[in-house]
C-alpha cells in the first residue's frame, strides 16, 4: 500500500466482510427456512438474495427465520421496512427474489402480484 487511494480501495473491498454486522439498513428481508421452506426451495432463494444484495449493494439485511405457519405458500420472503410496514411474498423462486430486490428494495415499489394477499384472493 503506497497511498491513501490504495487504502480506500482496500477498505471498499474489505467492507463486504463486516457489513452485515453494522445495523442500520432501510429494509430487513427475512426468508422462512424451516423444514417446509427448505423442502419448497427456500435455500436457493436465500442464496440469490445474499449474492445480489452484496453485488448491487441493496440497502437491506438478509436473515432467515423458522416456520411462519403458512407452509402451503413456501418459499416465503418477508420484507420489513424501517417504519414497521411489512410485506409478505409467497411462492418465491430465485427469479422472483431478484425482482423483489430490484423493485421493492431498490425503488420502494411493492410487487403486488407476488404478495400473500394477491395470491389468496386468486384462490378464492
Amino acid at each position, binding site marked *: 500500500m*503506497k497511498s491513501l487511494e490504495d487504502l480506500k480501495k482496500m*477498505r471498499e473491498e474489505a467492507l463486504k466482510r463486516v457489513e452485515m454486522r453494522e445495523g442500520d439498513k432501510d429494509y430487513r428481508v427475512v426468508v422462512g427456512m424451516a423444514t417446509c421452506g427448505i423442502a419448497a426451495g427456500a435455500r436457493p432463494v436465500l442464496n440469490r438474495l445474499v449474492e445480489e444484495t452484496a453485488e448491487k449493494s441493496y440497502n437491506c439485511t438478509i436473515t432467515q427465520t423458522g416456520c411462519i405457519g403458512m407452509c402451503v405458500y413456501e418459499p416465503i420472503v418477508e420484507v420489513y421496512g424501517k417504519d414497521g410496514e411489512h410485506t409478505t411474498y409467497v411462492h418465491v423462486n430465485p427469479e422472483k427474489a431478484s425482482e423483489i430486490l430490484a423493485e421493492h428494495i431498490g425503488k420502494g415499489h411493492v410487487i403486488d402480484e407476488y404478495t400473500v394477499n394477491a395470491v389468496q384472493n386468486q384462490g378464492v
Partner: protein
Amino acid sequence: MYRTNVLCCAGTGCTASNSQQIYDNFNEALKKYGLEDEVKVIKTGCFGLCQKGPIVAVYPDKVFYNHVTPEDVEKIVSEHLYKGRVVKELEMTDEDLLTKETIYDIDKIKFYEKQQRIALRNCGKINPEDIYEYIAVDGYEALGKVLTSMTPQEVIDVMKASGLRGRGGAGFPTGVKWQFEKDQPGDEKYVICNADEGDPGAFMDRSILEGDPNAIIEGMAIMAYAVGAHLGYIYIRAEYPIAVNRLRIAINQARELGLLGKNIFGTGFDFDIDVRLGAGAFVCGEETALIASIEGKRGMPNPKPPFPAVAGVWGKPTSINNVETIANVPQILLKGAEWYSSIGTEKSKGTKVFALGGKIKNTGLVEVPMGTTLREIIYEIGGGCPNNKEFKAVQTGGPSGGCLTEKELDTPIDYDNLIKAGSMMGSGGMIVLDEDNCMVDVARFYMEFIVDESCGKCTPCRVGTKRLLEMLTKITKGEGTLEMLDEMEQLCYEIRNTALCGLGQTAPNPILSTLSHFRDEYIAHIVDKKCPAGVCKDLLTYSIDPDKCKKCSMCARGCPVQAISGVPGKEPYVIDTTKCIKCGACMSACRFGAVTRG
C-alpha cells in the same frame, strides 16, 4: 459471499472456558450441513460480558448466545443456521442485561445502553487477527490522514485540544507530553506503549490488545509521527499470551501491507514496532522502571527528573503512554478534537474503561463517558450486589487507590472528583464490596500485595510498608491497639511524602481511605475483638444456641475436626472452641439457624 457471520469470543475469559473448541466445532458442523460457503465463523475480542461467556453472536440476525458449550454448537448450526430457528435456551435472557426480555437483539442489551465504546469500539465486533477487518471499519484512515495532510505540530495541537489524559493512572494530558518530546533536540527518539497492567483485578488493556491490536499499532504510529520517533516498543507482560500473539500477528500483517516499515503511505515516514515481554512485576509498569527493563536492566524506578520525554529509553527522548490512551488516538484524529472533547466532564474528556469485579452481578468490562456516576455503573450496568447483599464500598484505583462508600455513589466519575473523594482513577479496576467484606482485611490484602511488589530500592517503601502490614495483621488478629491507628496514619503520610516512586507514594491510600470511612470497623477489631463482617478468622467464635438447636446432628457430621458433640434427639449440640478451626461448615449445615458466629 457469506450470508451470516458467527462471532465467537476469543478473549481470555471465554478462551478459558473452551471457546477455541466452540470455534472448531462450528467449522466442523457447518461442513456437515453444507453451510461452509454461506456462514463464516470469526474469532473476536472480549464482548465485556465475560461472566456470561463463552459468548457467540450471530449476524445479521443479531442474536446473542451465552454460556455456550462445545456440545451446543451442532444445535445452533442445525436449528438456527440451517433452519432459521433461534435456539431459545441458549439465548441471553438475563433480565438484568436486557431491556425487554422477549426481544433478543444485541442492540437491546441494557449492559451496553449506558456505555459509549471508543477504546473498545471494535472488541467483539471484528476479527483481531485480520487486518482487513480493521481496515473495513476505518482502520489506518487516521494514520493516512495524519501523514498526508498534517504536520506533527498540528497533530499535537489536536491532541491538546481533545483534552485526552493518560489512562495509565496519573491522568497527564497526552498532547502536552508529546509536545515535551517533540521539543527535544536530536533525531533519535522513541515511543512506548505501556501494556504492563499490573493492578490486580484490571484487564482493560489486555482486552483492547486482544480485541483490537491494530488500533494500538495505528495509535503508536501517529504518536511517533507527532514526536519524531521511528521505533516504538510495546512492553507487555508475558502472562498475556493471547494478547502477545495477536499483537505479533497484527504487526506482521501491517508490515506486509506497508503500514509499518519504510516510507509509509509513500510519505517518507518510517516506523516500526518491537514487542518486549515483561516478567509481570507491578513496579515495571512505572515508567522509569519499565524503561530500565526494556534496556535489559533490572526493573527498578529512577528519580525524575530527568523525565522520559528528555532522557528515556537508551537515554533518548521517549513518550510513554498506556494502552487505553493510545487506543483513543486514531479516533480523535479521525473525528476531531471537538467531537472528543464534547464527551465527558470539564477537566476529564472522553470515556474510561473499567473492569467491574467483586460482589457485583454483571462482572465484565464497561466503557462509559467520564462523568457517569458510580451508581450508574454499579447498579444500572453492573446490576448491583448479588444475593440481596448490602453494598458497602467500591474500591477504585487498585493498590494505589481507595474505597468509596454509599455517600459518594452519585459523584460523577472523573480524575479530580475521585481524588477529592479520597480515591483515584488508577488504571480502571473497580471492585465492589458488600456487607461480607471486612475493610481491615481489604486494606491488608492490598498492603500484602505492595510488600510483595516493592522493589526495595528505597527505605520508606521497603521498610515502611512492611511495618504497616505488621500492624494491620495484628489488628486482624485482635492484637491491635488504638495507638496503632495513629501510628499507622503517621507512617502513611511519611511514606507518601518520601518514597521514590509512585508505587510507594500511593501505597498508603487503601489504608488511609478505609481508616477515614470505616474507622469503626478498625475499632471493633481492636476494642471489641470482633470482625463485624465475619472475615477475620482469629476473631470469630462459633457457638450453638441450645434453645434453637433441634438436635439433628447435621452440624457434627459436617465438622472436619470433630469439634461438635451431642446426642441426636436428646441433647443440644455444643462446639468445643479449643478444637474448632472456624471453617464455617456447621453454620451452613444447620437448617435451623442455631449456629451463630460472633
